[in-house]
């Protein structure tokens, strides 16, 4: 099946089986290995990408769903400099093994798009589809909350 889409700002035409998983296309065909696979069943959020700005699970998406879509992976999220969310993750110590991190950052981006000033509870709800086995989530919540504070200061 011929599919046209945008991946990290580049217009791309693909000829792939329509049922090929998006996570495999990204990782195996494009080398975009920042998108991780940890469950393959939509249960952990590690393969989160942004599709037309919204966070989606690339292990549950197939090629046909890419047609006409604007895809952002962690590699294309803020290619020239660190995004404030990424800076906050490093600053606040929200990263341990880092395998959940790309998905967590993109889930946070979606959350902050929908709720620019989330409370800690809203942050916890917002990332509750993304599993982390290392951190206990506290520093991830701290990181996202600090982005909110930075925005407030800016305003």
């Amino acid at each position, binding site marked *: 099946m011929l599919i046209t889409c945008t991946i990290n700002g580049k217009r791309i035409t693909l000829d792939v089986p329509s049922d090929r998983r998006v996570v495999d296309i990204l*990782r*195996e065909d494009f*080398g*975009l*290995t*920042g*998108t*991780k*696979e*940890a*469950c*393959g*069943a939509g*249960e*952990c959020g*590690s393969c989160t990408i942004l599709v037309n700005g919204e966070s989606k699970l690339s292990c549950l998406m197939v090629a046909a769903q890419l047609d006409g879509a604007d895809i952002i*992976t*962690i*590699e294309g999220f803020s290619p020239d400099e*660190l995004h404030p969310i*990424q800076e906050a*993750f*490093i*600053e606040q*110590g929200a*990263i*341990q*093994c*880092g*395998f*959940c*991190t*790309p998905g967590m*950052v993109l889930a946070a981006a979606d959350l902050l798009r929908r709720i620019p000033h989330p409370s*800690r509870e809203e*942050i*916890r*709800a917002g*990332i*509750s*589809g*993304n*599993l*982390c*086995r*290392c*951190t*206990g*989530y*506290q*520093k*991830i*919540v701290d990181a996202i909350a600090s982005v909110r504070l930075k925005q407030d200061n800016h305003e």
Partner: protein
Amino acid sequence: MKHQEDKPAQIGESLKRADGFGKVTGTEKYAADLYPDNLVIGGVVRSPYPHARIRAIEFSSAAQVSGVIAVITHEHISGTNRVGLPERDQPILADDKVRYIGDPVVLVLAENKQVLREAMSLVQVEYEILPPVFDSDSALQEGAPVLHEGRDGGNLLFQADIKKGDIETGFSESAFILEETFYTPYQEHAYLETEVGVGRLTEDGILEITVSTQTPFRDGREVADALGFPQEKVRVIAPYLGGAFGGKDGITVQGLLGIGALYSGGRPVKIYTSREESFISSTKRHPAKVTIKMGCLPDGTLHALYCSLLFDTGAYAGLGTPVLIHGMNHASGVYRITHTEITGKAVYTNNPVSSAFRAFGIPQVIFGLEQVVDMLAQKAGIDPLTFRMMNAVHKGDYNGLGIFMSQSTGISSCLATLADHPLWKERDSWIESAPPFRKRGVGIAANSSGMGYGPVIPDTAGAKIEILPDGRFRIYGGIVDMGQGNSSTSIHIASSILMQPPDRFELIQPDTHRCLPSGSASASRTTYTFGNALITAAEELKVRIFKKAGELYPHFNTDTLTLEPDRVLHTPDNSCVPLQEILLRMSESERTVTSTWTAPTNNQTFDIPGMVRILGFPNLIYSYAAHLARVEVNELTGQVTIDSYLACTDAGNIINPQVFEQQVQGAIAQGIGYALYEDFIVREGQVITKNFSTYILPTSLDIPDIISHAVSGYEETGPFGLKGMGELGVATPLPCIANAIANCTGCRLHQSPLTPERILTAVKERRC
């Protein structure tokens, strides 16, 4: 205190982790992320039976599928085909028998996943089904099916006793005595990166295995022996891991990658384990039955302890024996007890393999022990905190097992910090203000965690620092970073000694052909042992820099030189020279410094079997924790909510507070999962919980913000006074929360996890 950019790192300040950038941008390459050119995909046909003899393997039709590179069985393996430590009992590919559902039997190599799936479905294994055994007690009965025929001891993997004083006397002199039995289930590590790697045979005959592992150096030796391949030609590379927690402490896919690479025609072979395959085939925390009998004198002084441990190690030994011994090592908790007897057994069954998991046997023991301590305190009419403080070990004491506490021993400070905290002091008013249909309770628990390999196996690490042509420093890390941040702490240490900003340092992750052997990323030893080796290396490098400065500038007195960012300062006249100038004039040999350091050991003598000593008893150094949980139980649903959680930790002097907090918070989250949610179910050898929908990990909604206090301490043998603590926090939440639930419901739970069903049932039956 936070680190300032462009300044050398200081011990005790929070320094941003060096691995943050690569991980947050998705550019860091884990083993899972390697897709070299010309890649071959490997897949494993596994046993569907818990116990069976292999009669025949028919794979000719699989081998004929277009795109199949090779179909490999045990007959292709020319070495011992056995891995494991200390017991080499686990085949890379099953030969005579399969012993659990998931045992690897055939490895198929194919051009792509579709071909692989088809070929795997065509492999036919003819089995003679043997009677299985699924529980430890039955496995020890006379006439039980034997897993490893011809093995001395049959299904009993290991048994040992540790005794002190005379428990008969101890109990007869006790005023209050309790005996209770507790059960804990499997815990699945559930690292997000499953077992994965790439193997290849290079043109110059090196078998190169890049893999998600905690033990690259040990893997190299085991793979070589198992495959009959020269050890010096096996190279194991361990990039950053996507989590491990003990689950990659030893061989997972390494042997399969090795044999695959020998039959792939020189092409690289990748094996990626799906989540379901990982849950079925990977190791777990041992399910256990633990009986505790404990007695105290009328004044509350602990006097006698009997503890029996029965661990189900599954089909293969894994690290079952050292895990059991470490559990026994902690069976008297943080207390002085006059008379003790600890008896432990680890048993083979046809269940999934249990092996290392963060805190090695301690969680199973502490679940019972810390509840019985609470119950005994109540009997003696003493509050549980005072009771613990009365009985806690101090430096210079012998603990309940007779281990002399010669090093820093901060449990009393942990308990005192907890006692001073409002969460403890104001507990009564919080409990009383529970909303309708809610009950509130406060629980505490204490714990210790012995560090390192114990008295016999040398706990050694080798550090290497090299000055690069651009004047930067390269640190060769010998111990894997599975996420705990040790490689970043290496930069922290070297930066603080060489007085150069952290960005002047780069790291090489463990590689058996480039780095010095440094042992496993386990036993809370990583920063302690490697850090000490690195300090010596960095200090030596500093001496060489000053010596070279003295040679180049004869008026410099080397005793009065100091390092500053980018320069060497001659203090008497405040003159300085650029560091770069000195570094680049150092000879090739002067530019590389190595240092090997071996941890001190506890050489006390005990009347115990030699293997107990060899596999780790006793430790010299212990870290300590006292935790408090405030919980609310919904009386209608049995649901438990953790309102607040306090952790007071003695881990010596902290090098990087942020990394310390990461370990505290992360370990407690895993401990809360183990306490409340994680129930890995195996029925008749069959894994029932095969995914994250049925095996429930805590999410961001389930873990409260942890309040963490590090008590001040200094371990004289540690790097800058530090003690290891990566495992410490994981064991304490289960008994802490169980004690809090008992505090609010009046009921004791003897089986974990502490699910709403179990709580409601206990309340209904008033099983208190």
